[in-house]
């Protein structure tokens, strides 16, 4: 497969693994957080942990938009979809995300709510055109990568003068969440987990560019390497981070230069800033309220804002108190440290955010890596 196999080459991987071993000082640990779920998935899917020295540790960050969506937002969507005039259009991976008390969109659909799985924003527009007597709401979710398509869709609805179309906006931003992780007491004051650097987002950075991380690297003194989602991208980024650590640098470096520039996609950024504005704060499952981390539609576009149009009330739901997702997302704990992991919480019946999507830290470990726990137990 062209443009993919080149980045999965075994020989090059072995060469990079050797370089990583050579770069690693035996007396110090290297703890890097990959922010994106896409990176978490690549690590697990390709078994990259097997290629890293024991003291080079990867901490799986919160960069999976499905995972961090709080239960309250799911409850809001379920409540909205219960209204007979509503057709709720969602991406398939949202269907099983747990709301409160075991509710999910999948169960709501089975009970009769008109919830339709779509593969692109265009599908939602088409459904609105085909059902002029119904109200079609698109459940918009995702980081900076998926916000531009939502913006384009609103423009399209405007152009087509669609009167029955709106968006339930759950778009969130990457840099504020990274900042929140470093500022959280677990990391800064208690100092239980030190993060030595970040593998920066791949697709998100194609939109926002590398510049937004510069302040971050400077302010917190942490190296950031923007990396692609292929396994060789990951390996190279880890090597680049180790070099920065060893040379005491904290810069933003761009491993994913085949797709990412310093300024990103100007056109996309412009579309987004025309239509969206910052929320004062937005709740992330596992992280809690994070200031200026979410987007909403500007007042000029209020008629496309489902929260305004249908007077949706904000619902807050506490996560299961035994769930360790917050600590796992911050790298303080590992999936196996959670009492729920693999017992009541599995990909079939996820309790916490990290088990929801295959990009979540717990789901990735459960699906691809849990055999290692048994190997370790046997070895010790």
């Amino acid at each position, binding site marked *: 497969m062209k443009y993919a196999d080149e980045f999965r080459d*075994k020989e090059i*991987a*072995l060469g990079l693994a050797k370089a990583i071993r050579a770069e690693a000082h035996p007396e110090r640990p290297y703890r890097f957080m990959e922010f994106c779920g896409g990176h978490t998935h690549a690590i697990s899917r390709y078994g990259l942990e*097997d290629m890293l020295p024991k003291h080079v540790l990867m901490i799986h960050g919160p960069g999976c938009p499905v995972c961090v969506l709080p239960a309250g937002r799911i409850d809001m969507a379920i409540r909205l979809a219960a209204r007979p005039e509503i057709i709720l259009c969602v991406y398939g991976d949202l*269907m099983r995300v747990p709301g409160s008390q075991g509710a999910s969109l999948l169960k709501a659909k089975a009970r009769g709510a008109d919830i339709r799985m779509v593969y692109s924003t265009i599908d939602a527009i088409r459904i609105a055109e085909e059902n002029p007597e119904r109200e079609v709401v698109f459940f918009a979710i995702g980081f900076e990568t998926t916000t531009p398509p939502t913006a384009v869709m609103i423009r399209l609805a405007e152009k087509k003068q669609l009167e029955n179309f709106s968006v339930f906006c759950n778009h969130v931003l990457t840099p504020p969440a990274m900042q929140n992780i470093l500022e959280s007491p677990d990391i800064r004051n208690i100092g239980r987990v030190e993060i030595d650097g970040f593998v920066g987002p791949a697709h998100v950075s194609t939109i926002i560019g590398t510049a937004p991380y510069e302040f971050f690297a400077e302010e917190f003194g942490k190296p950031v390497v923007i990396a692609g989602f292929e396994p060789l991208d990951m390996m190279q980024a880890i090597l680049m981070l180790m070099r920065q650590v060893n040379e005491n640098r904290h810069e933003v470096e761009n491993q994913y230069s085949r797709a990412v520039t310093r300024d990103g996609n100007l056109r996309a950024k412009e579309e987004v800033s025309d239509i969206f504005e910052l929320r004062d704060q937005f709740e992330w499952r596992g992280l809690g309220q994070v200031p200026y981390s979410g987007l909403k539609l500007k007042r000029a576009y209020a008629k496309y804002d489902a929260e305004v149009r249908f007077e949706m009330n904000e619902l807050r739901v506490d996560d299961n108190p035994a769930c360790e997702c917050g600590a796992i997302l911050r790298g303080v704990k590992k999936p196996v440290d959670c009492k729920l992991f693999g017992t009541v919480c599995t990909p079939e019946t996820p309790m916490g955010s990290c088990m929801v999507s295959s990009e979540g830290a717990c789901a990735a470990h459960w*699906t*691809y890596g849990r055999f290692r726990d048994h190997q370790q137990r046997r070895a010790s």
Partner: protein
Amino acid sequence: MKGYQRKLDIRNGCVDLSHGSGGRAMAQLISGLFHEAFGNEWLARGNDQSAFDVGAGRMVMTTDGYVVSPLFFPGGNIGSLAVHGTVNDIAMAGARPLYLSASFIIEEGFRFADLKLIAESMGEAARTAGVHIITGDTKVVERGKADGLFISTAGVGVVPDGLDLSAENARVGDRVLISGTLGDHGVAIMSKRQNLAFETEIVSDSASLHDLVAEMVKAGGRGIRLMRDPTRGGLAATMNEIAQQSDLGFRLHEEAIPVKPGVAAACELLGLDPLHVANEGKLVAIVAPEVADAVLTAMQAHPLGRDVADIGEAVADDHHFVQMATSFVGGRIVDWLSGEQLPRIC
């Protein structure tokens, strides 16, 4: 005087509620369309059941339902799929399939022309497989109560003496053979649903495997422990089922697992794992190491086993993990699919 009945207007007509009501219209649909397509001595007798001789030995019986959407896809349609799927379930016991039943639940308004195409390809698939559809049923439901057409089948076959293939038979050290490329059927369906155009069209692998199975049994005899056709849930589900039932684990080698480049690319694009995608003309065989080469050679000589690959081995494992050495370097689990990846694939 013989009552006049207008002929079925196959080209322009469609099924209405009278075609399921037990009256003359239904009789006409059955004789004019289904008997025509399936034509055999049992149906010709027009009974509510069909009698057939039972030979010596053990028989197998299976049942299956087909709800695939869309009804027509590259490489087949719901009719050929229903025959292949049922034949394969019988064949996985090492058995020779003999007779099938077919029950049709048809939505009001379904075009005769489409029904004819489907019935004809069912008849064709049955003839190719050497099985007979000897009894059936037709029901018509109101518009909106069935998505066009559902088919359910049953099948019986006979197992050769001394053969007892079963999922608890795998032993540590056994080899895992897969008869060809993975994921073709699921991706063919998906590409139609999403209107995804690829440079080369991906065609479903839907096919009857009993002939291949007969060759394998000839070559491997009792050294063949069990066979499964990895349909919904793909190879991943099949291997996990066997691991549980045989109380062991498997170690697979990703590089050895055959996947067509077009299928791999489509999966990449759609975010699917080819190991989770359905197949309708592939089988997994767990075989004793001493007969593995002979079975492999026999499979290679058969058109449906040309791309056969030895993809791994059974290992001792209390946790029943299916592990895989990735084509990269590290290892991972091949887990069950969770949730619904592709609903209504067969």
